């Protein structure tokens, strides 16, 4: 077996590691100093100690991290006290991605991320600093074809970027960030003044103002986050490989062989659907464990163009225009009943618990539930077109999954006894990332036909 000499990362890895842990350590030290009521002097001393420790750790880590290739596998060994070695068969590597953060840019290196199926984010092999030439060599060695001139290219214009950020779905991340800031502020002010920020919110008006502030803050953060993450977004493909580049401060470059793309989801979020906009998300084993941002094929697209753009970027997912197999009319009440009852129950419970005069909330929530159910009914549907199966559904956002039939991991047909009596069935397909598309309450015969057609 031919095996190369173990290689080390570029020395920039020391700095990358050190800065990473220093940010945490110093932040922690300063926070401790503030909360404990220490002087700026002690805070500075703690910070200096944190930086020193980070540099030492960074060096130790770098000196203990090696990787090498042999005939069949990539080996990676790291860990200062308990070194562990990971071995990935070359044939199992799904994709090789690079990230160029500000630090990497200063040193002219890149971070290389080897995507392996079934690995959680922390199990991926990450080479935090290698030269561009080395990255290129690794990519070849791990079976990524040489880039050719792109056949198709979709770039995000600035105004589209702004639109994507304005209607962006990163709200949940931003909300938790704001909540964190609030908690922190509360903590600090609590110590300083002996009175909690939240404890001061007595009147409904103050509470409403605080909530509104938090919401606006979250929205602004989400807007900025989307800009940072998606700036300069380019998706392009040649005959074999799909490549995606994005990011302002840290440039991410994903490359995935086209044959390894399982499908694409067209996501019409709550803010986007009314504007006729959607985002495209890539479904593949390679990036299955990534968060939504990491799987973005295109942050924003006009809904009516979505299928065309998908067909251009991933020809295997091209579909003929055609009608969806939709739930029959008799299924409508099944879609509407459950969410409206849930809404009504929640509303009644809230009214009883908070204020009996708030009873109209129950009616309002029931109505909202009914609307959600109606949307779900109108969205639900499946289609087979060549090798592609399309499953459309709506919970809050409308999602249309286009998946390659021959790459489905699993498909299922389910019906309760009640559905059986009504001649209805739920149809679902599961793709490599674990993502699933489900169309509920289809006509039994139609669902069975599709189910049978998916088996070769």
């Amino acid at each position, binding site marked *: 077996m031919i095996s190369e000499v173990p290689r080390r990362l570029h020395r920039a890895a020391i700095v990358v590691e050190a800065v990473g842990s220093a940010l945490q350590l110093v932040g922690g030290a300063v926070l401790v100093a503030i909360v404990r009521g220490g002087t700026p002097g002690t805070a500075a001393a703690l910070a200096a100690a944190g930086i020193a420790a980070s540099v030492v750790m960074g060096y130790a880590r770098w000196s203990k991290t090696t990787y090498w290739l042999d005939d069949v596998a990539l080996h990676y060994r790291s860990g200062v006290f308990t070194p562990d070695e990971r071995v990935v068969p070359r044939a199992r590597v799904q994709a090789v991605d690079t990230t160029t953060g500000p630090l990497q840019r200063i040193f002219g290196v890149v971070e290389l991320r080897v995507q392996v199926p079934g690995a959680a984010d922390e199990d991926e092999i990450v080479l935090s600093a290698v030269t561009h030439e080395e990255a290129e060599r690794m990519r070849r060695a791990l079976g990524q074809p040489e880039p050719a001139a792109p056949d198709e290219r979709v770039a995000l214009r600035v105004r589209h970027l702004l639109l994507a950020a304005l209607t962006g779905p990163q709200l949940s991340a931003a909300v938790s960030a704001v909540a964190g800031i609030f908690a922190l502020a509360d903590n600090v002010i609590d110590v300083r003044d002996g009175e909690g920020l939240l404890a001061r919110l007595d009147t409904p008006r103050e509470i409403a103002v605080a909530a509104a502030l938090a919401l606006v803050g979250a929205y602004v953060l989400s807007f900025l986050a989307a800009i940072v993450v998606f700036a300069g977004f380019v998706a392009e493909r040649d005959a074999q490989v799909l490549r995606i580049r994005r990011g302002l401060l840290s440039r991410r470059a994903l490359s995935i062989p086209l044959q390894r793309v399982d499908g694409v989801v067209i996501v019409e979020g709550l803010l986007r659907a009314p504007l006729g906009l959607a985002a495209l998300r890539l479904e593949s*084993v390679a990036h*299955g464990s990534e968060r939504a941002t990491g799987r973005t094929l295109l942050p924003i697209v006009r809904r009516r163009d979505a299928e065309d753009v998908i067909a251009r970027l991933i020809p295997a997912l091209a579909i003929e225009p055609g009608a969806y197999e939709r739930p029959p009319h008799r299924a409508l009440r099944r879609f509407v009943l459950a969410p409206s009852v849930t809404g009504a129950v929640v509303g009644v419970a809230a009214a009883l618990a908070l204020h009996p005069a708030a009873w109209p909330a129950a009616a309002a929530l029931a109505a909202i539930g009914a609307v959600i159910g109606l949307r779900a009914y109108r969205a639900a549907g499946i289609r087979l077109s060549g090798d592609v199966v399309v499953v459309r559904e709506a919970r809050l956002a409308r999602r249309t999954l286009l998946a390659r039939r021959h*790459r*489905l991991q*699993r498909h299922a047909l*389910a019906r*309760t006894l009640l559905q059986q009596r009504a001649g209805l069935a739920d149809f679902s397909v599961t793709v490599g*990332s674990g993502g699933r598309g489900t169309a509920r309450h289809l006509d039994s015969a139609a669902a069975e036909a599709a189910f049978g057609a*998916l088996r070769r």
Partner: protein
Amino acid sequence: MTETPRSEPSNRLPIATRTMWWGESIGTCVVLVGAMLALSANVAWFPLALALAVAAAAILYTAAAPIVRYRHWRWDLHEEDLDLLHGAWRVIRTIVPVTRIQHVSVERTGWTDLFGLVRLHVHTAAGKTTIPGLERPQADDLRDRILAKLRTPDDL
């Protein structure tokens, strides 16, 4: 409707699975019944009828659920896919194409040994699918048959 699905899978689970399920749920049932009796004996306002009703429901469910679940479980390994059918209230038919299977594991614990059973897990990139009870030789045979079909380890 030109295409009709192929016939449903034919293999049942071994009957010992039912016994194992009884064994698994009987503990919870005993605890629940005990708690109900203790409540009605010690808490004055707790209605005896409610305690008895809950206890009766628990006993009935524990006795009946494994029977029903067992009766509805079917599996089959076809040329190209693994075919599962299960569920009493919600009947679910699942197809796992053999080409998507990454590995197969046979789980054997002291508990399953008592019944001479093992569990078979079929892992794909999207997670695992489980046959909850098989006799050991049967499981080994099924595993070998699946593995024999796996000829494309590269392409997931």
